[in-house]
């Protein structure tokens, strides 16, 4: 079950959008700000952005869905991103990722049934000389092994 969040109000959404409207190319900053506040991009925001930026709702949706970062529903309380890129693969990153998914009984992008943790792939965290790497929320961890990953999962409540 995903994290329970109250439904964002129109006023809250409008206030966030207003902060960025003056910027050149305001859409990505708006989407990042919405996601930082609510954990996802509320459906109600799409029409409001479209109106504000003189775009169609389909265009806004097209942008939201293009980028891996933006979610249309909340994630778990914690997000663990495991690097799948070549430098981490060279030091066993793929095996670590497979083990982790198997242990959690999840596929990529899925959330544990208790809503504690979402697991996502990421392609490079710039930790290429100290892999395998993962990012737990905003914190990067290097030279991961099974034991360290197990601690991360426990701490996240998975």
């Amino acid at each position, binding site marked *: 079950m995903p994290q329970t969040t109250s439904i964002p109000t129109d006023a809250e959404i409008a206030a966030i959008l207003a902060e960025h409207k003056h910027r*050149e*190319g*305001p*859409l*990505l*900053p708006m*989407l*990042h700000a919405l996601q930082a506040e609510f954990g996802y991009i509320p459906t109600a925001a799409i029409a409001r952005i479209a109106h504000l*930026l003189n775009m169609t709702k389909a265009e806004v949706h*097209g*942008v939201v869905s*293009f*980028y*891996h*970062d*933006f979610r249309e529903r909340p994630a778990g309380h914690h997000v663990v*991103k495991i690097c799948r*890129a*070549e*430098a*981490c*693969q*060279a*030091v066993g990153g793929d095996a670590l990722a497979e083990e982790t998914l198997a242990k959690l009984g999840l596929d990529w992008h899925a959330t544990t049934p208790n809503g504690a943790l979402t697991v996502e792939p*990421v*392609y*490079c*965290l*710039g*930790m*290429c*000389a*100290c*892999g395998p*790497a993962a*990012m737990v929320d*905003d*914190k*990067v*961890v*290097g*030279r991961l092994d099974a034991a360290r990953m197990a601690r991360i999962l426990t701490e996240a409540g998975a």
Partner: protein
Amino acid sequence: MKLYIPMDSAAKALGADDVAEAVRREAEARDLDVTIIRTGTRGMIWLEPLVEIDRGNGREAFGPVTPKDVTALLDGTLDGHGPVENIPFFARQTRLTFARCGVIDPLDLADYEKHGGLAGLRRAIDLSSAEIVAEVTDSGLRGRGGAGFPTGIKWKTVMEAEAPQKYIVCNADEGDSGTFADRMIMEGDPFTLIEGMVIAGLGVGATKGYVYLRSEYPDAIAVMNEAIRIARAKGALGEDILGSNRSFDMEVRVGAGAYVCGEETSLLNSLEGKRGVVRAKPPLPALEGFLGRPTVVNNVISLATIPVIFERGAQLYADFGMGRSRGTVTLQIAGNVARGGLFETAFGITLGEVVNDLGGGTRSGQPVKAVQVGGPLGAYIPVANFDAPLGYEELDAKGGLLGHAGLTVFDDSVDMLKMARFAMEFCAVESCGKCTPCRIGSVRGVETIDRIARGDADAIPLLTDLCETMTDGSLCALGGFTPFPVMSALNHFPDDFATQKEAAE
């Protein structure tokens, strides 16, 4: 006593924050007068967390340090490496772009100035636009993002374009696996990037800059934002730069996890708030870039190298290197390697020297099988080609590409068919969707490699043909260069593509 502890995210990923906290507590318990200075990394990642102590006689390095070592560290009984400058990996480098990285507090503008910072900008302020651009051209600097296009020529095009507004856009969407130089300099010496962008602005007549920084780098985002705020407060950015009556301002824009946005035209679309779809060229971004205005799009390392070129002169920079690859290259030694990290040196060092001498072979101790040079779109180079000198044209002649100079080492446990499949899979995940050969070809590529894996030899010519179509029929390097890792794996490591079939027979 001063302690220098990195705040670089790789060092933090290996426990630098815990070490800093342990030092703080231990010093407090002993009532020691200790100043902790958080720096960038010196780039020797296998030694991180690398702590330097100055007891009044210069900095001595220790590492990797764990919180448990802190007692011995402060007692003076921990074994160390002596001064960083004496560590062979560091001693063999020529640090121009990264001269300050790991040395100074990244957010101390006065310290930055004390180490040569802002000298280049002060010199540039007294030059005309044409003189600034000529200096860059004379330095021989080429785009460090991978394409190697001469930076001076790009700047000249923008300088000569007439427009009410021009832009400097820094491409900090460092998505290539095996590369971390951009992240390292943004976290370790952000003012050098800011200074480079200001000089670029003065050179081409742009007053606004953007750093398009990937969301996977939260630490770099935080450091850059803070550095911009400080630079603005101290007059190095804004309305009247260093009292010159010239203006330039900039901001960080955060990417959203799309690899293809490292391609300059899709980056510009993303910056404008669109899907990060590649644009056809022409028009060149130099003439119709961000919001249709003339725009310099340069990689972080290109821009961060500008200050030292102006500080020490174009000729000094150009005197390093070989052939048409002038200056220094910031090699990033990554993957399964004993001594991984950043190594800045003049162009021309061979791949073998880097991997075996500097890198010390693999971390696992197994023999090296292949090195992927230039990120996910770069070729896998076998040990037989280790005599290849690292330069743009030189590597090209060996069927590789230098790219952003990331070198990912693999030991003999790697299955090259699997790596070829991954290259296609990655292209399928990250394709912007504009070109059919990239969007569909990559999916068919995965399927075709799976056929080969099942022992279907007929699929091999099909894969070759598909790769040719992707190379010829894609607008950008994602679809166009994915065949590099795929075909290099197939050509150099045919055994990995044949074993299944032989087993089946």
